[in-house]
């Protein structure tokens, strides 16, 4: 099979990618760890000193941290709930025989390709603005009071925006999974008189289980790091109402120039993301064997 020569050639071909990624992981990570033990503010250069674990202490006992943790969970959970439920329903709908299926698919997938800053600003200004947004016009036509979404329901609004971006992704993956479902199985169940809800529960849903897991895990990785949408709509406010962990660390390090505190926050974010990552890796690793 593979000769010794081709084996060493292979090693040579893999090494640039491995070395670069290794450097990309180790250098910044060890610096983050190092900074997190320093009292280090960019406004006071030359004043760095060893601070032990005090940065972690301040970060983890800061009420803003708990707000950020809660907001992160609400944001990730809310978007996941909307996109999974919506995605399953849409995938089933799009899997039905219909005219112009390709066109509908193209329409549904489109939001995924819109850059985060554009979608956030379009929603914020042209839809959710309480004076001149489309929702305000709609509410007026219905005889309702216009609603200031980003002021009175900021987290809900951001969940809505982010869900709009990720619903296409969930739909597309679940639709791909749907198409590998053996339709004879469903037809047989239908002949046997199984009602639609039962067919969904006992045949379709178990078939989609794997794809749903993949969607949940991958979206979670990205949703933990939602940033641009918050930056251009609410700046984390009002107060800390929409500050997630990513935004909190950004604010602490690049707005307050607190390198030490921001680094400690970064380490906390890494630890939390890794808990999710372990599950995802196991999932994909299993697939690699199959």
């Amino acid at each position, binding site marked *: 099979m593979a000769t010794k020569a081709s084996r060493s050639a292979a090693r040579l071909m893999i090494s640039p990618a491995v070395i670069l990624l290794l450097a990309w992981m180790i250098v910044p990570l060890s*610096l983050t760890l190092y900074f997190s033990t320093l009292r280090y503010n960019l406004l006071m250069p030359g004043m760095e000193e060893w601070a032990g674990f005090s940065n972690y202490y301040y970060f983890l006992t800061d009420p803003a941290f708990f707000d950020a943790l809660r907001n992160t969970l609400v944001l990730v959970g809310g978007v996941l709930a909307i996109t999974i439920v919506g995605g399953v329903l849409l995938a089933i709908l799009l899997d039905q025989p*219909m005219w112009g299926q390709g066109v509908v698919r193209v329409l549904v997938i489109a939001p995924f390709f819109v850059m985060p800053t554009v979608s956030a600003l379009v929603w914020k200004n042209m839809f959710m603005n309480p004076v001149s947004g489309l929702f305000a016009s709609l509410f007026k036509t219905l005889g309702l009071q216009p609603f200031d979404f980003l002021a009175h329901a900021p987290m809900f609004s951001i969940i809505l925006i982010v869900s709009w971006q990720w619903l296409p992704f969930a739909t597309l993956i679940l639709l791909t999974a749907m198409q590998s479902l053996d339709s004879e199985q469903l037809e047989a169940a239908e002949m046997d008189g199984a009602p639609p809800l039962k067919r969904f529960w006992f045949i379709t849903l178990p078939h989609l289980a794997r794809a749903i897991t993949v969607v949940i895990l991958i979206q979670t990785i990205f949703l933990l790091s939602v940033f641009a949408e918050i930056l251009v709509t609410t700046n984390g406010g009002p107060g800390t109402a929409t500050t997630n962990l990513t935004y909190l660390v950004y604010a602490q390090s690049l707005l307050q120039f607190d390198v030490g505190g921001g680094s400690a926050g970064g380490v906390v974010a890494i630890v939390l993301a890794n808990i999710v990552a372990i599950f995802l890796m196991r999932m994909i690793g299993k697939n690699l064997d199959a």
Partner: protein
Amino acid sequence: MARAVTNRRKTIATAAAWTIGFLIFFPILWTVLTSFKSEADAIASPPKFLFFDWTLENYATVQERSNYFRHFWNSVVISVGSTLIGLAIAIPAAWAMAFVPGKRTKDVLMWMLSTKMLPPVGVLVPIYLIFRDTGLLDTRTGLVIVLTLINLPIIVWMLYTYFKEIPADILEAARMDGASLRSEILYVLTPMAVPGIASTLLLNIILAWNEAFWTLNLTAAKAAPLTAFIASYSSPEGLFYAKLSAASTMAIAPILIMGWFSQKQLVRGLTFGAVK
């Protein structure tokens, strides 16, 4: 009888799917429409859908006031540049892992994937400081480096799953016929690998074009790509809906078109081959 029922079911499914598809697409459609309105028409109440004076002035104004095409060009350079460099590094690696798998190939692949799990904010501070000290802040070079590295695992993985599907027998046959490693890659592997490489290229340009954490944090005026440029509309300037729409339409149009072409590969690329 059965046929009539099927047809009715098909009609209902069609109507429902088109309605929902239209609703999901509507914000994009609305942005494109608004970009052709005057500012007054853009905030008119009740809103004007199609019957307004169509104008191109917003596009001209956006370009004039902010040199839009410089930012557009930044986006092109950063996304295409990082993707091409990424491919140059990843193609040999993926080739070796797919055709000369060793005992630890799987571990290396999984480890590469794990670097993708690193939340960007966890390394924001050191990257920012390194960039500040090396003069890479607000340069296209700096962003190309970062985006190459963050997308490298995805590129390797996508290529790997494509290369895996190329039958190894063909390579063996070429080797039997005395093909060198170089000609094996050049004349046997490359033609079969081109479709996979093309999909990988497309998907990664899309990802890099829309990347909005590093581009926002590492650029100011000079090297800002469109993601960062559009973010400047979050100030009251964003209330000029027609101009915001024109800038947005130009920013998303090329990627929308590329995206529609690559929708099938998207599934494979973003799930690391876990769903095909």
